[in-house]
């Protein structure tokens, strides 16, 4: 028996699979197999499922109703026939002719869902793929499906799931229903004609769903609740919608300036529009209008140009004349052009030179003839000179010239050297012209004259002549002194004053010199054999006049370090030829020439100094230095003069080396300051040891007279008293309380004294509380300035969070007096710019990038300018948004 059971067990799975498929619909997650085996255990042999029994009973009442068992088998959809056929021989294993197939062990997966039971029998109708045929809805369909599956299963030995895909395919219900007859019209009858149409499967599916799970419709919510929910949803929705404006609004709020209707076109009329409205008003306009509006002309314009020509009346003769005239002019022009071309082509230099000369000659003749042309030329020359002076174009200051000089003139080729020389020449020319302009300032001429007059071996006559000349000159100069320059630097008041002063001095000197001349002239007359005049009293010029006999090297010697200013002055006297050789000294000379009187004064001074040397032995050393510096002078002096005995000793002493001079230097610091002339030199000499006093010592010495500390203390006391008044001493009014001696004895009433003491105490406390109570050297005023109080904000204004930021925000001025016109607009732009009379429309949505701060190119510039200024304001707005 057990064997039989086992066999049944073996064969059962096939069945149970199908059972499972059906039963699983009801009880998901249960282990089907177990249930099935339970059932089998109770029964013996193959049997009909109870449901089928029932069904059969309905059709033909059967006696095996006792077989009814568990509900799980109720839905096993198998008919008798199928059931019998379902057990093939090999599976029953009765005769043991077949090997046992171990497929009874098969278990359905736990999460197996049998929604899509394979239930197709017509593979050919495979249109509806997604359709999971209603196996459980219609028994017939299910039967067929089961049958098919089983067949497949029996052939392949695979579980039913393997055929799922196929099973999905389709079920056609047409034939099934055809069996049933027309008495029951179901929804499928209506569906069927739609078969194959698009959307059919969807419809079908829905029908299935509806049929499968007949949902109990829950009672509707009360209206109030429903509306509430609806409102919630609506509000959430509209909230979300309105949030889209946020970036836009934020941008507008943060913008320092809102511009409304900026791009509005206020319909400025075009030129055409204006012209169309034009009406002739003046006579001329009217005439024009008549001509333009002439119907004939208009007509001609509209038709073609031929008529216009007719209207344009000109005589043939006029046209011809004009034509001839034009032709003549043209031919003349042509000839002239050809001629000039020809001339230009001639390469002969001589020809050109001659041509040029001729032109110049013509020009000069013209100048001579024509005062205007001369004037013009003079002006031109003047301009050139001024230009030269300004630009110094020909002074080898150009890049090219500098480079050449740097490389060395000798390294250059002939042409370059010539060019440089030419430049210099030109410069000299131009500048000399300038000199000649002021030749009436004497010195140049004098020197020229001197050089002319002097012959190497000048005799007594020459000397007297010279003296006379000098006298003349001096007088002349003295006469000329009076006229001051009316313009230029010299006309400035302070210059004027100084010039005057110098002139005074020079005048005196000149007078002295004049006397000397007289004297020497007299002397000269007296002792004719004594040739040499007294140089000690004569001016420098005179000396140099004498020195002319010296070889040139002597005068040019001062390339030595002792080349002081005074010396260059002397040299300047020397004459024309020197000018050319040494540029630097010439410059100096020009300087001196500009101020001839000054130069004169300087000369005189030198003489004076020399006199002083002789007089003051104390200052000997210093002057020795000076003399040493201008050794040419000394030599001249020593050679030339016999009378110069006074100087002689100092000159004799001079052979002492400059180094040794320093030793003597020490004591006479006083005389130092007087001798400005040699200052430069002295300073270059290393000084002797001198110990500086310490800084504090110096300060102490400097303020030895005044007691600063005491002063400060007094100041402090004053401020303290001013800010905390010292209480007045209690005193009675005179006569008050002095009626009787008792009263007098009592003195001042105690209450007053107490009060006074109290006040003193208070004051002391107040003083202690002061900030500068413990700071000895500081006064901190605690006085409150009522007037200044008005200029301070009482509290920090709202948007600002720190005092510094607020102060910063009002630091820079914004007015037109302090800012250029370009930036004023941006600085003062109001928060809203709109035009009166233009309608402002409400905001229109536009997509903006919330990340980019300012995407308006038009505004961005302005905003950037204002950003610093308005920063705090923007913050404030943000606050407002939050609050």
């Amino acid at each position, binding site marked *: 028996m057990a064997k039989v059971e086992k066999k049944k067990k073996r064969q059962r799975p096939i069945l149970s699979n199908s059972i499972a498929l059906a039963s699983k619909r009801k009880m998901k997650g249960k282990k089907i197999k177990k249930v099935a085996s339970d059932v089998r255990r109770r029964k013996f042999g193959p049997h009909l499922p109870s449901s089928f029994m029932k069904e059969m009973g309905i059709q033909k009442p059967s006696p095996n109703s006792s077989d009814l068992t568990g509900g799980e088998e109720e839905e096993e959809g198998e008919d008798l026939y199928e059931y019998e056929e379902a057990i093939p021989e090999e599976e029953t294993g009765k005769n043991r002719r077949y090997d046992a197939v171990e497929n009874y062990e098969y278990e359905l997966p736990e999460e197996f869902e049998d929604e899509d039971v394979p239930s197709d029998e017509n593979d050919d109708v495979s249109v509806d793929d997604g359709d999971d045929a209603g196996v459980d809805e219609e028994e017939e369909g299910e039967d067929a499906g089961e049958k098919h599956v089983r067949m497949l299963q029996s052939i392949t030995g695979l579980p039913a799931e393997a055929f799922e895909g196929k099973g999905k395919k389709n079920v056609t219900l047409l034939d099934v229903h055809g069996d049933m007859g027309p008495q029951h019209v179901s929804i499928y009858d209506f569906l069927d004609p739609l078969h194959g149409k698009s959307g059919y499967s969807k419809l079908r599916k829905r029908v299935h769903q509806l049929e499968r799970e007949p949902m109990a419709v829950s009672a509707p919510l009360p209206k109030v609740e429903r509306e509430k929910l609806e409102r919630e*949803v609506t509000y959430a*929705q509209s909230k979300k919608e*309105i949030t889209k404006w946020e970036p836009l609004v934020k941008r507008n709020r943060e913008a320092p300036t809102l511009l409304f209707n900026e791009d509005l076109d206020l319909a400025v009329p075009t030129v055409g529009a204006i012209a169309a409205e034009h009406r002739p008003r003046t006579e001329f306009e009217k005439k024009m209008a008549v001509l333009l509006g002439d119907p004939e002309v208009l007509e001609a314009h509209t038709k073609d140009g031929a008529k216009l020509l007719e209207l344009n009346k000109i005589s043939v003769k006029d046209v011809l004349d004009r034509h001839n005239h034009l032709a003549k002019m043209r031919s003349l022009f042509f000839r002239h052009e050809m001629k000039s071309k020809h001339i230009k082509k001639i390469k002969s230099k001589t020809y050109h030179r001659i041509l040029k000369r001729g032109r110049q000659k013509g020009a000069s003749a013209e100048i001579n003839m024509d005062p205007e042309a001369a004037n013009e030329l003079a002006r031109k020359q003047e301009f050139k000179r001024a230009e030269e002076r300004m630009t110094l174009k020909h002074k080898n200051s150009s890049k090219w010239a500098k480079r050449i000089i740097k490389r060395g003139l000798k390294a250059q080729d002939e042409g370059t050297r010539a060019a440089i020389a030419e430049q210099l020449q030109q410069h000299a020319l131009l500048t000399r012209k300038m000199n000649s302009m002021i030749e009436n300032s004497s010195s140049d001429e004098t020197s020229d004259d001197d050089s002319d007059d002097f012959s190497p071996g000048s005799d007594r006559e020459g000397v007297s002549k010279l003296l006379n000349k000098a006298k003349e000159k001096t007088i002349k100069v003295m006469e000329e002194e009076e006229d001051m320059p009316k313009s230029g630097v010299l006309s400035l008041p302070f210059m004027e004053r100084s010039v005057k002063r110098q002139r005074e001095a020079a005048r005196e000197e000149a007078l002295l010199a004049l006397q000397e001349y007289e004297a020497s002239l007299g002397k000269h007359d007296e002792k004719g054999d004594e040739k040499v005049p007294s140089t000690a009293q004569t001016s420098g010029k005179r000396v140099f006049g004498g020195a002319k006999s010296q070889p040139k090297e002597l005068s040019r010697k001062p390339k030595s370090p002792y080349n002081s200013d005074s010396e260059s002055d002397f040299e300047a006297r020397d004459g024309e030829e020197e000018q050319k050789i040494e540029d630097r000294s010439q410059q100096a000379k020009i300087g001196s020439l500009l101020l001839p009187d000054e130069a004169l004064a300087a000369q005189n001074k030198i003489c004076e100094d020399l006199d002083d040397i002789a007089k003051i032995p104390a200052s000997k050393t210093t002057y020795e230095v000076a003399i040493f510096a201008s050794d040419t002078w000394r030599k001249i002096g020593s050679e030339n003069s016999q009378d110069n005995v006074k100087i002689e000793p100092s000159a004799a002493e001079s052979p002492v080396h400059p180094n040794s001079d320093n030793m003597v230097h020490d004591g006479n610091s006083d005389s130092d300051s007087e001798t400005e002339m040699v200052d430069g030199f002295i300073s270059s000499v290393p000084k002797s040891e001198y110990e500086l006093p310490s800084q504090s010592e110096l300060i102490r010495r400097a303020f030895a007279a005044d007691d600063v500390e005491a002063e400060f203390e007094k100041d402090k006391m004053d401020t303290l008293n001013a800010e905390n008044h010292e209480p007045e001493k209690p005193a009675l009014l005179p006569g008050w309380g002095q009626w009787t001696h008792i009263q007098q004895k009592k003195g001042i009433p105690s209450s007053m004294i107490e009060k006074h003491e109290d006040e003193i105490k208070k004051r002391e406390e107040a003083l202690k509380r002061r900030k500068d109570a413990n700071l000895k050297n500081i006064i901190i005023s605690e006085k409150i300035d009522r007037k200044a109080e008005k200029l301070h904000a009482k509290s920090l204004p709202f948007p600002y969070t720190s005092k510094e930021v607020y102060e910063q925000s009002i630091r820079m001025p914004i007015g037109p007096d302090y800012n250029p016109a370009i930036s004023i607009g941006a600085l003062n732009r109001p*928060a809203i710019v709109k035009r009166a009379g233009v309608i402002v429309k409400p905001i229109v949505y536009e997509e903006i990038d919330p990340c980019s701060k300012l995407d308006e190119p038009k505004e961005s510039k302005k905003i950037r300018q204002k950003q610093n200024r308005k920063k705090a304001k923007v913050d404030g707005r943000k606050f407002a948004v939050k609050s």
Partner: protein
Amino acid sequence: MKVKVISRSTDEFTRDRSQDLQKVFRNYDPKLRTQERAVEYTRALTAAKLEKIFARPFVGALDGHIDAVSCMAKNPNHLKGMFSGSMDGDIRLWDLSMRRTICQFPGHQGAVRGLTVSTDGEILVSCGTDCSVRLWNVPDYRSKNLSESSGNALEPMAVYVWKHPLWGVDHQWDRTLFATVGAQVDIWDHNRSEPVNTFKWGNDTVISVRFNPGHPDLLVTSSSDRGIILYDLRVSSPARKLILKTRTNSISWNPMEPMNFTAANEDTNCYSYDVRKLSEAKCVHADHVSAVMDIDYSPTGREFVTGSYDRTIRIFNYNGDHSREVYHTKRMQRSLFASVVVCCFWFTVIADEFSVPCRVFCVKYSCDGTYVISGSDDTNLRLWKAKASEQLGVLLPRERKKQEYMDAVKERYKHLPEVKRIIRHRHLPKPIYKAATLRRTMVEAERKKDQRRRAHSAPGSMPVQPFRKRRIIKEE
């Protein structure tokens, strides 16, 4: 060698026209002018004083109505056009520049409570207590023959009689819908005689309605149950209700910030709300001493004007807790108005002395943000400048620059005590001044009392509620 010479380019020194000013060249080195702050402060002070001197806000009164002006509407497409409706059913179209009536729209049997104009300025919608909604064609302003005599007899384009008296109407921006309110909120289309949609939430009368100009599907209403209700037309359902302690008389949306609106409340304050966060007001604008009757935003969205039962008009900044400006005239304050003669067709009423309290019932900001119009109890419309000291008319560029500089300087130094004092100072009529003082005293007393209560109760039992939330009862 560099020679320094004075060189001037002719371009810089040549004027285009002989009337032009010579250019002045300045050295802007700050070292040369060290007193700039002192100078600018003085200028600010001067500017503040000048502003006071030139403050003449009242432009003119527009009279013609024979009963109190109850509502106004501005023509969004025409600057000069202003409609006003009065309690006797009269509707007038005014030319603001001429300050006269262009035409009248007769027809309403009872008081006109609401007026609105479509965005294109073509259609005027009016409604009133006679339960009718009337649509009118707005006459063309440019036609010359439209004088008072000829334009008098205007027929309404359509008349819809409805179930209940209507309290307000507002037109959607740029679309064809408009909403009327009364016992319920009805949304109408120009072309239909029946409302296309109807909302009802609660049983109380809705007294004002306003569409959001930026976001045209949103509208907000206020009702006599002290509620403010937000509707969304796309979902066709109310969205949110906010119940305050006192009634909201009027509401205005900020045209530049579609999420914000300001409600004019009975409790003398205005409250600005963000639609997304109705649990607290964003800002409380306080200064009136009596109920605020109407409010309207400037088209720039930076200011709004309020008219109050206390016979003043105030202008607030959109985020300012106190008013920037207060407008009133002597005539507005006069409680007794002598001998007003009212002429009608067949009878003459001579009212010897009857009181005209001049409560401001409606205010509007003009479409260019330059003027303010108020309509009041004393049958007058009044035209004011939005900026009291602004110079009207064309300004030369130099004048404009100067004005800008003065304003900028004033703005910069407005925190300094002297400047602040001058800028803030306003003269108030005696009754209003007294009422304000009294009100301040009351508020102070209340605050003190609250403080004491808090001091004598267990800590934490009386949570401090900010003023912005205090007036809100609930949000649903």
